[in-house]
């Protein structure tokens, strides 16, 4: 598991992008797990993440202080746990973004290296 570290030592996992994506969605609009599952998978089409995984990550992030939940009643439906991002959550998201930018650079460097070798004919693509 790859984790960015906040100043107080807790880290948000960037593995599979689940926690950064959830923090980003909650930052845009505090909401409940049911809606987060729907919007998460719309944003993250490459890989389907099971509802249980999303609920577990929300609970994990609440234990770590990145989000805070409270019951929100709705007019026609049931009350659900609504998640808000905390200051620590915003900090953790910022650090996850830095970590992801580093990973992105590493991937770009790797791909460029591979393309250069291919262009020079050092790698037989057949």
């Amino acid at each position, binding site marked *: 598991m790859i984790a960015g570290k906040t100043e107080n030592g807790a880290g948000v996992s960037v593995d599979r992008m689940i926690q950064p994506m959830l923090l980003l969605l909650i930052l845009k609009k505090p909401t409940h797990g049911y809606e987060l599952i729907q919007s998460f998978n719309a944003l993250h089409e490459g890989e389907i993440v099971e509802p249980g995984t999303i609920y577990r990550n929300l609970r994990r992030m609440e234990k770590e202080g990145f989000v805070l939940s409270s019951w929100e009643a709705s007019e*026609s439906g049931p009350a659900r746990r609504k998640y808000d991002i905390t200051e620590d959550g915003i900090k953790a998201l910022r650090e996850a973004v830095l970590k992801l930018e580093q990973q992105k650079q590493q991937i770009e460097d790797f791909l460029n290296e591979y393309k250069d070798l291919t262009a020079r004919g050092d790698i037989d693509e057949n």
Partner: protein
Amino acid sequence: MKTDPNALKILHAGALRKPIKECIHILWEKYPNLKVELDYAGSRACAKAVAEGKIVDVIALADYQVFNDILIPRFVDTSFVFAADQMVLAFDEFSTDSNKINGQNWMDVLLGNPTIKYARSDHRLDPCGYRTLMLWQLAEQYYARPGLYQSLENGWSNLYPKSLDLAVALMEGKIDYGFEYLSVSKQMNLQYIRFPVEINLSDPRHADYYARAKVIIEGNYPGLETEILGAPIEFAVSIPKNSNQKELAREFIEILTGPRGEEILEANGLIPC
């Protein structure tokens, strides 16, 4: 049954039997002498009992829609969603053809061998029953098998009042297969086949697709039918307005929906949410 006026009275869906008991043990850590009266049934039967005057302090059901249909606003203000689940096909090692059945051929195995007994719970009393009917409707579309729903509905051997009874019947060898919640199957150490997410009623991403399934529950009089649309499975809890122990009921719900309750739910195969 004679009730103790000071006891905390909890009425719950049969599927929640084990996690509710475990949460009561946590409440007893704080109130070791507290009397607790537990009663359980299919969720619709639970709600009807409260609507007909049964006094309880906590009511925990397998479907928040049952609160909306029967209890809100007259008997309950709102319900709180606390867990999710999915439908599976449960069986054990003694079930006929248990060595042949799998996620692709389950309908052919159930319908192809006349000695196999499979069961569902009663849709009039228990959400697991109407969810089974929804699963069959969705399976007919998903597998492009016209007539599958009716064949499955014509073929069941036993009908039980609640999902827990299905599991017990399986353990006793009265039936070979039961359409059951994953949580109950895990709690009873049963084997199970998972269905595709498109039909197992587990995933909010497929809520629109699930809503294509529809079950009509007959009322006591013509015109009093209730129409229930397919939806992701969500369990909910509430404190009825006529509770005599609202503060204790609140403490119990805080345990059920808090960190220790979440651990208990997870250990019992439910997804706390």
